[in-house]
């Protein structure tokens, strides 16, 4: 019997396609170190205003948020559109709690400096941002998780809109500064900061997805009735997925606030959720590496590669038609339409759902911990 067990455990440990897990972990660690080193090196040689840093920073933040949405949409099968609401809560929590007392008079100029006169350290505020978003996720989950598919999407979308309205409510001005923007809170300078924070958060989500609970989430996604018959408490597990997703969206929101150096509720519209949903769909629903690759591509396209379309271009004295502000979005939409038409399952989606690839894919996710997208990031930087 003992021999049998040994054999079985060995079978579990041995990966059919070769590499020893230790080797894989080491390769992943080396690649990650190289990536961070590469970014550090870029920061030394390029001016800080370079567009590359904008793309890298925003791409890292969006990949965290996209992965958090993918946890719900792709891994638990809950079609939620509340991500902008959770990001808003995270961003506001972080901003409100970290504005230094001496700057408060200027920020809250219409509200006598607000009612908060302390500032928390950045890591504590970020954690609280996640926790508050998670709490909101829990509360909204209580009624909403009874709904399915489209109805769940509508309800969560409504939640995000309501949160946006509440934050702008005048009576809450002393805390949220109502519809005025919040600024002067501590921000990051180095591109390494969002990479490290988002990387850690995505690592945690990967660990969760590959744990027993992650398997339960996938079971719910594949067949709710069977999952329930296997003793999985549907409501509890859906709540867990929603709270985890909201928590990381909250942290993502805090990072976004830091990146933008100011927060205004008006920016967190449903269009923002759609952007993130688009990233998830392009990357492949149910693929973490896909979400990461897609968010860098998306941000690079919208911030960098297609920027020139918005400017008036004159070639040999001839002004090209259409090239004016807003044309970028037209081209962008067409590109997205092509992607959706010809990569119906997203960039990574087919790999994940290919018949023999799924287990290998999850294992690669697990061992490589985003090995592939990190390479992609490096490629984007170089």
């Amino acid at each position: 019997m003992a021999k049998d067990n040994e054999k079985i455990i060995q079978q579990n440990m041995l990966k059919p396609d070769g590499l020893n897990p230790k080797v894989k972990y080491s390769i992943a660690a080396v690649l990650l170190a190289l990536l961070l080193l590469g970014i550090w090196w870029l920061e030394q040689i390029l001016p800080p205003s370079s567009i590359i840093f904008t793309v890298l920073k925003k791409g890292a933040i969006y990949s965290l948020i996209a992965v958090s949405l993918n946890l719900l949409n792709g891994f638990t099968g809950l079609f939620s559109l509340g991500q902008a609401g959770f990001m808003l809560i995270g961003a506001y929590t972080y901003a409100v709690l970290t504005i230094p007392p001496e700057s408060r008079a200027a920020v809250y100029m219409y509200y006598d400096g607000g009612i908060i006169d302390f500032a928390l350290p950045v890591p504590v505020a970020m954690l609280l941002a996640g926790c508050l978003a998670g709490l909101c996720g829990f509360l909204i989950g209580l009624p909403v998780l009874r709904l399915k598919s489209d109805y769940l999407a509508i309800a969560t979308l409504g939640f995000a809109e309501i949160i946006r309205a509440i934050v702008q409510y005048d009576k809450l001005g002393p805390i949220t500064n109502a519809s005025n923007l919040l600024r002067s809170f501590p921000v990051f300078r180095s591109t390494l900061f969002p990479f490290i924070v988002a990387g850690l958060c995505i690592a945690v989500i990967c660990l969760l997805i590959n744990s027993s609970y992650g398997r339960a989430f996938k079971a719910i996604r594949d067949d709710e009735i069977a999952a329930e018959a296997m003793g999985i408490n549907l409501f509890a597990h859906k709540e867990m997925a929603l709270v985890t997703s909201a928590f990381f969206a909250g942290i993502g929101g805090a990072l976004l606030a830091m990146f933008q150096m100011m927060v205004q509720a008006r920016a967190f519209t449903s269009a923002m959720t759609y952007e993130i949903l688009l990233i998830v769909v392009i990357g492949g629903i149910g693929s973490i590496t896909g979400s990461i690759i897609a968010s860098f591509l998306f941000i690079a396209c919208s911030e960098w590669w297609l920027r020139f379309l918005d400017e008036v271009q004159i070639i040999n004295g001839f002004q090209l038609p259409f090239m004016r502000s807003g044309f970028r979005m037209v081209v962008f939409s067409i590109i997205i339409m092509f992607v959706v038409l010809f990569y119906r399952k997203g960039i990574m989606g087919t790999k994940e759902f290919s018949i023999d690839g799924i287990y290998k894919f999850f294992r690669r996710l697990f061992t490589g911990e985003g090995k592939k997208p990190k390479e992609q990031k490096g490629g984007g930087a170089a």
Partner: protein
Amino acid sequence: MSENILHVENITMQFGGVVAVNNLSLDVNRGEIVALIGPNGAGKTTAFNVITGVYEPTNGRVDFCGENMIQNYPKGKMAKSYKGENLGLYKNSISKTPDQITKLGIARTFQNIRLFSGLTVFENVLIAKHMRARQNIFSATFRLNYKEEQRMRREAMELLEIQDMGHLKDDIAGSLPYGIQRRLEIARALATEPQLLLLDEPAAGMNPQETQELTDFILEIKNNYNLSVFMIEHHMDLVMQISNRIYVLDFGSLIAQGLPEEISNNPRVIEAYLGVSDDAEN
């Protein structure tokens, strides 16, 4: 008489004006294989769904291992439109969700196979181990449940090896042949460590040889896991071969019960059910 494990008492299930199951009472004793048969639409699967908590019965009670697990009486609108019997016999309303019932020790399979078709064979079985593992979402995420996880994996793998499916462990469940999917579904149900196994038409769509293999398989797991089996089945040879007792349902009501040979000679049963096959032969 051995110990009673499942006791269903006066179950009535009414959907709107339709009585799908009418005043059904039955018992399953420990170590028995009991079959529930009846023509299509007789209410067999509805009875299963009541026992497993998918539906809340309109009236009646279900006991498992001597403990009252489900009880209900017509309430609200249903109190007026109720067409069944035994009104007022039950005063309590006890209900359990399917996952709680699985945890108590009743596992089931489905008429139309419900595997997690995108996951591997191994993961399918592993998921069934999730509910009994001592862990929470934090310990699982940060791998503090390492021993628990190893135990789950080992047990799932052992189960697959015993069921001769070890070599399929990395195959995607949805890509397997039909007969193996059926067996996997049973293996997955076994992984929840049940005392009572409910099989909803396990031999549906199987050829005679596969049916014979399944018959042996059911007997084998019953003995190896010390199970009681309660099953819905249409294949009469399978039913007659392995059941200790048979219940016959027609239009929601029990029309006969007894030993296999009694049932096969019962005129009401022949009229309602077996008679059809006689006609087909002629």
